[in-house]
């Protein structure tokens, strides 16, 4: 006889291919934590997934207001997905402000779970509602579940050592427990996580675990939740996976770049959102001989990086938009002195302080042209968290091989979003060459600007190497000797050479690949974080019978060699960007093509649905 199992009466489990869930609450409500826990549990379960955290720039904006709402969206699926989903099918709203800020995105007939204890008159008014939205009829058309999250928390913790208002800090665990029930996710992973996280505060771990179980049991008890869902494991390629966000992927890529080049990593940075997490991550890994330098300002961070490069490190500085502006003069110095260096720019909404916690692709032209003088340098962009790992290695490779600063663009969407990453075989990663030298290249003394005639890179002689002492700087240098030169023909030559050196890299990068219907008339061309949205939109359109292809640039300078040929095979080029049209300017100028833009600067990424509609509109124009 089978072992008796607990059966929940009337429980039905419906299998669905994918679901998008959004958790929304006050910035102090712990929504990022709930979202991350649910994500990690789903990753361990074997779903494919993608996440979109969104939080205010203020650490604690006024409680209960729209400005203070923080949210975390995750899509989990049993198939390969590329985006965190369009409109969520499930919305958890911890207070009226969260409801007001997010309800308009909830899919029709979506599941809406609200913390009814937060719907007091004061909070309702603060959120900008004139009348209680639960009574106004605006929740019609959704499946609404009112859950007394605060009462449940207080009840669960009435015997806990945690007292007073601190008790309510655990109320997010009610939401997590309940969602875990509804989507048939086990609690073990989160329980283990809580025990480890609060190892030194067992009473806090205990309170959270109790509340988590209370939320889960609420699902069991209340019949309304007896229709539950399961998203089966995704049929991902076999292998070992981990879940990373883009800042971690990028950090690990830099560490890998140093290992693969047999150099040590120097990372100079000044805290700035959303790039700071790279500094945090790298400072954990000093056992890789990583030196992290938290400088007094953005300029010093870049300047120290130039010093590290001069001294033979894989030298990297990281920042976000405003910081890139401050580093501009220093990047020109590295460019003029032809020193290898990687500059990471995690883009955010601009100009000025702009939208510090929101994604935008509006620094592209600045990365390409935001320096004085003729100062071309390679620019590449990460399209996803795992791609950030590989682009960090690639940026290091190019910098070291060609003796040039390289700008690596990420953005808030790539940086803070996460996805499962199939781990590479580390031994398959390429080793990176560099131009370090210990030998004299001329009988008349060392020539620091005597170039390799394949890469046009100059030799890299670093302090400590006897016999190769030399002096260089930001003044124009004479080809060969590197001595200061004001000679007009030399300046013309050096300017042309610096441009040629970068243009020549086009021969050394991956050619552009096509996705979708190769025989279509229309090509959607993108770069950076729009990859998931564009690819998914094009795939959907192909399924619908719309003929369209897509291609996604990693290098924006130089363009891959085959870009021109690919573009010439299509009648219509559409370029979606989270800016007002920057790549499109480059494509129009370089290829004289009347490309069409799809542009958005709303502080949020494109959804696949939105792109599919707009691409179709452009095709039908």
């Amino acid at each position, binding site marked *: 006889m089978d072992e008796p199992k607990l059966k929940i009466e009337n429980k039905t489990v419906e299998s669905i291919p994918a679901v998008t869930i959004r958790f929304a609450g006050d910035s102090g409500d712990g929504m990022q934590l709930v979202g991350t826990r649910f994500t990690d549990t789903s990753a*361990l379960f*074997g779903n494919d997934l993608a996440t979109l955290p969104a939080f205010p720039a203020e650490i604690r904006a006024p409680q209960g207001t729209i400005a203070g709402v923080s949210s975390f969206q995750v899509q989990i699926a049993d198939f390969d997905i590329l985006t965190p989903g369009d409109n969520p099918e499930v919305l958890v709203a911890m207070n009226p402000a969260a409801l007001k800020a997010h309800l308009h995105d909830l899919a029709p007939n979506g599941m809406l779970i609200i913390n009814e204890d937060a719907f007091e008159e004061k909070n309702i008014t603060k959120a900008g509602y004139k009348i209680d939205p639960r009574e106004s009829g605006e929740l019609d058309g959704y499946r609404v579940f009112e859950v007394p999250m605060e009462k449940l928390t207080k009840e669960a913790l009435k015997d806990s050592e945690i007292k007073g208002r601190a008790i309510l800090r655990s109320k997010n665990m009610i939401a997590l427990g309940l969602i875990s029930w509804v989507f048939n996710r086990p609690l073990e992973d989160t329980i283990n996580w809580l025990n480890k996280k609060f190892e030194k505060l067992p009473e806090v771990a205990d309170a959270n675990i109790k509340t988590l179980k209370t939320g889960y049991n609420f699902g069991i008890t209340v019949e309304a939740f007896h229709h539950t869902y399961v998203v089966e494991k*995704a049929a*991902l*390629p*076999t*292998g*070992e*996976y*981990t*879940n990373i966000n883009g800042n971690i992927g990028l950090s*690990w890529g830099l*560490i890998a770049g140093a*290992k693969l080049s047999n150099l*040590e990593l*120097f990372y100079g940075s000044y805290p700035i959102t959303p790039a700071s997490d790279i500094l945090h991550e790298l400072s954990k*890994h*000093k*056992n*890789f*001989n*990583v*030196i992290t*330098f938290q*400088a*007094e*300002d953005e*300029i*010093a*961070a870049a*300047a*120290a990086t*130039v*010093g*590290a*490069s*001069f*001294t*033979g490190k894989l*030298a990297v500085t990281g920042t976000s938009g405003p910081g890139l502006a401050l580093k501009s*003069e*220093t990047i020109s*110095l590295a460019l003029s002195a032809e020193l290898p260096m990687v500059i990471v720019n995690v883009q955010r909404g601009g100009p000025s302080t702009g939208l510090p916690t929101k994604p935008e692709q509006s620094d592209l032209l600045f990365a390409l042209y935001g320096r004085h003088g003729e100062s071309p340098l390679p620019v590449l962009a990460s399209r996803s968290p795992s791609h950030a790992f590989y682009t960090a290695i690639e940026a290091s490779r190019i910098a070291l091989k060609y003796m040039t600063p390289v700008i690596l663009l990420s953005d808030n969407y790539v940086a803070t979003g996460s996805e499962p990453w199939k*781990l*590479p075989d*580390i031994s398959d*990663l390429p080793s990176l060459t560099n131009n370090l030298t210990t030998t004299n290249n001329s009988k008349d*003394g060392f020539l620091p600007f005597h170039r390799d005639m394949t890469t046009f890179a100059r030799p890299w002689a670093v*302090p*400590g*190497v006897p*016999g*190769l*002492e*030399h*002096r*260089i*700087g*930001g003044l124009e240098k004479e080809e060969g000797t590197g001595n*200061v030169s004001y000679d007009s023909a030399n300046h013309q030559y050096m300017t042309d050479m610096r441009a040629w050196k970068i243009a020549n890299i086009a021969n050394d990068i991956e050619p552009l690949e096509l996705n979708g219907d190769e025989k279509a008339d229309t090509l959607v061309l993108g770069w950076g974080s729009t990859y998931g949205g564009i690819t998914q939109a094009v795939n959907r359109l192909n399924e619908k019978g719309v003929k369209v292809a897509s291609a996604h640039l990693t290098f924006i300078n130089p363009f891959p060699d085959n870009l021109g040929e690919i573009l010439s095979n299509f009648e219509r080029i559409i370029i979606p960007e989270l800016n007002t049209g920057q790549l499109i300017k480059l494509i129009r100028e370089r290829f004289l093509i009347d490309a069409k833009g799809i542009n958005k600067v709303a502080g949020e990424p494109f959804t696949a649905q939105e792109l599919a509609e707009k691409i179709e509109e452009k095709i039908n124009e």
Partner: protein
Amino acid sequence: MSKVPVNYKRTDMQSDQEVKWCPGCGDYTILASVQSFMAELGISKEKMVFVSGIGCAARFPYYMNTYGLHTIHGRAPAVATGVTLSNPDLSVWVVSGDGDSLSIGGNHLIHALRKNVNIKILMFNNQIYGLTKGQYSPTSEEGKKTKSSPFGSVELPFNPMSVALGAEASFVARSVDMDRDLTTQVLQEASTHKGSAFIEIYQNCNVFNDKAFEQLTSKEGRVANRINLVHGEKVIFGAEDEFAVTIENGEAKIAKRTDIDDSQIYVHDITRENPSVAFSLSRLSHGPYGPTPMGVFRKVQRETYNEDVMKQIDFAKDSKGDGELDKLVRSLGTWDVK
């Protein structure tokens, strides 16, 4: 730093580049002092790095037959920080001017000093912008008439010694271009100091600010106004040693020796942990006018930034083992898809 028996002549320290400062510039004397000193430092020249920002003084690295990096305005201390962190075995020198260090690069100067980064900063103070042809600088005296201040500067100048001491500098000293002996002594003291050193060298700009330091360099001025600070010795000065420095209620004062007892004379101690006496000495003059202290103000031992950074790296390697990429990419937990 490992010292090896290296014997250079001054000429070994000279690069093949023609020196292009104006004839008569104080920089020539300083260059000669530094080249002679570096030749006898006992360090092989591939381990010497000169880093500079922008300004007349900043051309200095081009004239040294060592490694050199001429960078951008004000940023040399930050660049040098990257150099010394990347290879703690190097002897790293920053050459700067009053505009470079105290105006555009003020932030980098104070933080390099605060952190006790192992770099030696030489600030040539000529109290004027030379390379841009004669505007007032952050050390120009109030009322100074220049191209950019035809009615006189309305700014209170910095006292560089006070700034450095206020920035927690562990080594602070002052010299003057003409006095090669003092400059060499001060360089010697700085080279044996662990951590950051700030050395102000008064430097005559004979084109835009000639004779600015006359009160300290003329025959009479030199004996009358220079207060030579010598560690362990009573601070007395004057043509006939008729003046002395006393410290009363923490404040440095100048007294006629006939008015005080010799036991009241301040005995200079560069190793005082508390910088307040050194600061007080720095306030005896606000600029090179009248009695002005010269020499080493302060030299105290403190952990250097370099050492602390390396200690953390060594500790991480000891406790976690050398980093392995295979482990790193699995550090957040993994799962298998079969």
